[in-house]
């Protein structure tokens, strides 16, 4: 079917539509490393000056980049680990075990999965204030974990559903406890799912902007997203080359993960979590 038609019209239209995006992406990288005359788009020389934020303090009165990067890393890894751990057990329970009100929990999970979490931000803000977790990294981590969970459990349940139940049946027949069957027989089967959720929640935590912005605005709990946005807002004369260098630094782990796990990611995002 592909050979009976000419391809160049399609390529042309696709190319035109992709041009703005390509321009943005190319200059995002090029501008981070080059000097330019004002009013020109053509680079006139190589420089690492835009990356000065890595070795000298920008006079923003904010925490330094490495502290912020560490925060972001702690935030993303902790969230990813906790979400994955909880989803591993909860997904198994919903997929395989029979317990009271199972249908209710499952329907609830689907509703939560579709529910737009960002509407809850005001109530969460007030709850964290009441609990005394406002403006702490741990508070943001807990909230992010809770909001990410329905999606994680849903994906994990899907992976458990594909494991042939003969495996478990055999284990149970041989006299192993259900717990041991899960740990020794089923878990190795769902390792791709485990990886998928780890990666997905890590990326989601790494990119998160609204939660840290609202729930931890202080300088102790800054993450790269809020750091970068504050930098953009602070500057009276927009120094886009600096912003782009910060952005490139920020996006580096994302791009690396994307390059390695591209196909896997496309499948997960097919389930969709943002607009």
């Amino acid at each position, binding site marked *: *079917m592909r050979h*009976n*038609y000419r*391809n160049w019209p*399609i390529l042309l239209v*696709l190319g035109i*539509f992709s041009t703005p*995006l390509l*321009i*943005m*992406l190319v200059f*995002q990288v090029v501008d981070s490393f080059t000097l330019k005359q004002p009013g020109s*788009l053509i680079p006139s020389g190589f420089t690492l000056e835009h990356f000065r934020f890595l070795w000298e303090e920008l006079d923003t009165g904010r925490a330094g980049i490495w502290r912020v990067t560490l925060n972001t890393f702690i935030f993303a890894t902790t969230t990813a680990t906790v979400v994955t*751990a*909880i989803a591993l*057990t*909860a997904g*198994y329970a919903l997929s*395989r*075990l*029979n*317990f*009271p009100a*199972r*249908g209710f929990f*499952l329907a609830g999970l689907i*509703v*939560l999965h*579709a*529910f*737009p979490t960002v*509407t*809850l931000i*005001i*109530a*969460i*803000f*007030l*709850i964290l204030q*009441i609990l005394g977790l406002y403006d702490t990294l741990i508070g943001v981590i807990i909230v992010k*974990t*809770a*909001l990410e*969970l329905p999606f994680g459990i849903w994906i994990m349940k899907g992976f458990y559903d594909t494991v042939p139940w003969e495996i478990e*049946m055999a284990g*149970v027949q041989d006299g192993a406890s*259900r717990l041991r069957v899960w740990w020794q027989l089923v878990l190795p089967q769902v390792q791709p799912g485990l990886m998928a959720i780890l990666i997905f929640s890590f990326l989601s935590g*790494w*990119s998160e*902007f609204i939660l840290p912005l*609202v729930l931890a605005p202080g300088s102790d709990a800054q993450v790269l*997203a809020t750091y970068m946005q504050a930098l953009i807002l602070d500057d009276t004369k*927009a120094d*886009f080359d600096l912003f782009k260098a910060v*952005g490139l630094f920020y996006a580096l782990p*994302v791009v690396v993960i*994307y390059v390695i796990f591209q196909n896997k990611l*496309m499948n997960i995002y097919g389930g969709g979590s*943002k*607009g």
Partner: protein
Amino acid sequence: MKRMNWLGLGFLAPALLVIALFFLAPVIMTGFFAFTNMSTATGITGGDYMLNKSALRALGDAGLPDATLEKLEDAGYAVDEKGLAALAAQIDQETADEFARLHGGESFATRRDVERALKDLRQNRIRKTRDRKAAAELFKRSVLNERFGTEAEFRAALTAGGIAPRDHDQITAQAYTGWVWTTENVELLFTLPSTWRYAANTAIYVAFTLSFNVGFGLFLAISTFYLPAAQAATFRAIWFLPRILPPVLYVLMWKWFTWDTGFLSTVTGWFGMSPKNWMLDSPTHAWTTIVLINGFVGASMGMILFASAIRAIPASMLHASEVDGANRWQQVRYIILPQLRWPILFTTAYQTLSLLTSFEYILLATDGGPGRATEVWALAAYHTALNNYGGNLQYGLGAAFALVLVIIGILASLFYLRLFNFRQLVGKPLIEG
């Protein structure tokens, strides 16, 4: 086999706990908060009782008798422990001791009386008039501008000040600095003209972005389907990037593209146009940018879902159509599109809800500007409750804004549950206990 039940619930318990605390509780609490007047001024955890000048004025307007107001303002002077301690700190301990010996426990009606008493001290007269005035002020006992931790304390102070008991309730209510229950927020939502504006903005935003997402997602999925695998993969990878990049960086790229020092202005500058901010110079441009920013992200979801649906079409059908002489347009119209009905419906349903409530990209790009032109409902909730220029954050009103979205969210989620027939997914587990 009873044990299985407990294993299942045990496995579920951590998830239930976290979700209940930080997912379900916020849903319910939004409902509560929406009916309070919580704000920065009232605080969150509760309040004190304090009367100040403006509260007094409000009470006067509300018809409290002038005599009572005067009493509230000037409850007289009393020589008590607190005042004496302050006096000792300000002058010295001996003066305070002597004053206590002569006048301890007495009350004076006016400041002049107190000053006279201070002047008449035998050993430790306060000579300077200014010092006496300041010292006398230390003994002023008024309900005004004093903080009371509990209602009982405040009422006791009113009684001590000789305020008629029938006025107590009114004064106490006015003096309370904490939040109270109210339905004002809901009334405000219906009466403020700006809320209708936000609703209209939201409708514009959802309609245009959704059309772009679905339309362009379809275009991407179908066009890449006809390309050789390598080219198709390249385009899909490019169009997937906006979704995977952190929103702050993604919006930064758009800012560079549209702002007055950025790409568009530089290029138009070559043709003699003066640089301008293409994102914020007019509402139309702002909306265009917003729709494109969201659309470039949203299109990839449609692209992925539609592409996998197209791949599921049996190749024989497509071959057959070509043998029958169908051109490409006919192939798309009569074979591919009918197969995409459910994915399109799903994407539309899912994205309607998420666009209705999302404000991240708008917040980052235009922050509702220029003016309030791109302020959508969810962003208005955020601005009202969590970030406004006035400084007084109105949590209650913001929660009322959010409550509308929460209710829509719940209803829509339940509706999707029916629409996409999730009952089969809720079927019995393969191995049951």
